[in-house]
């Protein structure tokens, strides 16, 4: 069952078609979403009413395009801000975690590592509600004690960022740890031996070595944050990120505007993905 083992023609044919079918299945919904972004109709469905750019650039009712939709544009901004914060924070903490797990032996390390993995197996919605519950307990506690209201602890951007950070950090940690494990510690010894201090060695040797993984982690974290729904849903306040905003609209019914947003999202993420691939290449 590898190319060097002779197989009958029909087997190869059936297998090949199955794989082809699979990729059609993968491509189908995305293609459909993309195509109907150009339908000159109120609905993203057949019949095809002709081609239009209106869902991108239109500025008159009812065909207001993405680029003239305040709500959507604001949501994109919010998502971008959240994603950037989450990416930076999770990669920063992911890097310190990687060093901790890679460089130190201490009691409870194994348990801590398992705990670190846990956010991956906690459903996103549970993460969301636990943080929601805890932050309001805190806020209420502060209120009861000091009659002081800490809005930051109420649903809103900070909680959204922390909620996403809470599990994306695990992923960043794994990505960076994997790379750090491949790092040959004698490189640091060599730097030391050539006159560098410990910190200089880390700065000039280890961090550049980790760079591809860190950049990869930034992009993955950014994308994951950008598309996160479950955790965000429970923590969102008045500033809705894009997925939530789109979901709210979708609840009201689908219009090609959503297709247009989706198509732009696809293009954006493909671009980012490309950046990652180019980086990993090097």
């Amino acid at each position, binding site marked *: 069952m590898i190319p060097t083992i002779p197989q009958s023609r029909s087997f190869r044919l059936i297998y090949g078609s199955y794989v082809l079918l699979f990729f059609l299945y993968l491509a189908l919904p995305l293609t459909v*979403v993309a195509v109907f972004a150009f339908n000159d109709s109120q609905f993203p469905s057949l019949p095809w009413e002709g081609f239009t750019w209106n869902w991108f650039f239109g500025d008159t009712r009812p065909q207001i395009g993405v680029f003239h939709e305040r709500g959507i544009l604001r949501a994109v901004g919010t998502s971008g801000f959240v994603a950037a914060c989450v990416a930076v924070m999770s990669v920063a903490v992911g890097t310190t975690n990687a060093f901790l797990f890679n460089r130190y032996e201490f009691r409870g390390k194994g348990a801590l590592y398992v705990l670190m993995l846990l956010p991956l197996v906690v459903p996103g919605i549970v993460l969301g509600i*636990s*943080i929601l519950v805890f932050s309001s307990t805190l806020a209420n506690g502060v209120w009861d004690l000091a009659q002081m209201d800490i809005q930051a602890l109420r649903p809103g951007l900070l909680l959204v960022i922390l909620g996403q950070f809470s599990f994306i950090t695990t992923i960043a940690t794994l990505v960076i740890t994997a790379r750090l494990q491949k790092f040959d510690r004698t490189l640091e010894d060599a730097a030391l031996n050539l006159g560098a201090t410990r910190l200089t060695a880390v700065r000039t040797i280890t961090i550049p070595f980790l760079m591809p993984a860190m950049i990869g982690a930034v992009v993955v974290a950014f994308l994951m944050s950008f598309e996160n729904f479950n955790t965000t849903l429970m923590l969102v306040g008045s500033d809705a990120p894009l997925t939530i905003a789109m979901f709210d609209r979708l609840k009201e019914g689908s219009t090609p505007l959503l297709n247009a947003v989706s198509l732009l999202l*696809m293009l954006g993420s493909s671009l980012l993905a490309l950046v990652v691939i180019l980086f990993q290449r090097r």
Partner: protein
Amino acid sequence: MRLHARIGFILLLTPLVLWLGMLIVIPHIDMLLISLRERISFGVYETNLSQYEKALTEPLYLRTFWRTAVMSVLATAITLLIAFPVAYYIAKMAKGRLQQVLFMLCLIPFYVSELVRTFGWMILLRETGLISNLLQWAGLADQPVEMLYNDAAMMVGLVYTSMLFMVVPLVTTLESLDDSVIEAGYDLGGNGVSVLREIIIPHAMPGIVSGCIVVFMLSLGNYLTPTMLGGKDSLWFTEMIYNQFIVRSNWELGATFGFMLLVLSSVIVWGMLRLTGRTLQETMG
């Protein structure tokens, strides 16, 4: 020197402890405490198991709970069945560029948000959607066919959304299987079936387990797909959590549900690990 190491250790430990403590451990403990609370009247609470009692006696809750679990297992199994041949093809049959391209193609849907993917399926499956029109055009149906809002549609969405998380670990483990081991299997008289059963699948087990765990978790915790593609009967456990928190403002019961979901997922993940004798560390790290 020693002092430096100590300081470094503390500096590196702090963010980890803050993160896990403040965002994972304490919130979950707090959630547990809330779930153990009963509201007596305005602002008066009592600690007891009444929420759990309610959750375990009300047939709706219990049924939804099991339904979600069973459907998630089913979605995981289907995903595995569909993904395995494809992953095998990518890892072992395709070579060079084709292999890279196919692998990349598998990743693409992941780069687009789940909402968009689900939205795509809605456009395809709805009564006025593409497939319905296609069937009518082909003469296979004489009136619009509704394919949305049922368990099958939901399953299609769940499987679709999870596919990547099954394919990637499978491809990775299968790629690590040396061609010559497969060849040795044939060389010693094996055929396709026996090589698959005795060599390929045992080798792929780590990938199968980690893929299944992730897919199961994603299905169990999914909210979008069941709400948007599922029908009027397809209540999902996450929806109930959302409902209790957002629609009913009943945080006590919502927290209880959250905890039940957590326990369910932990038990199933633990079971899968036990079954295959692997640790979480090996599987996820």
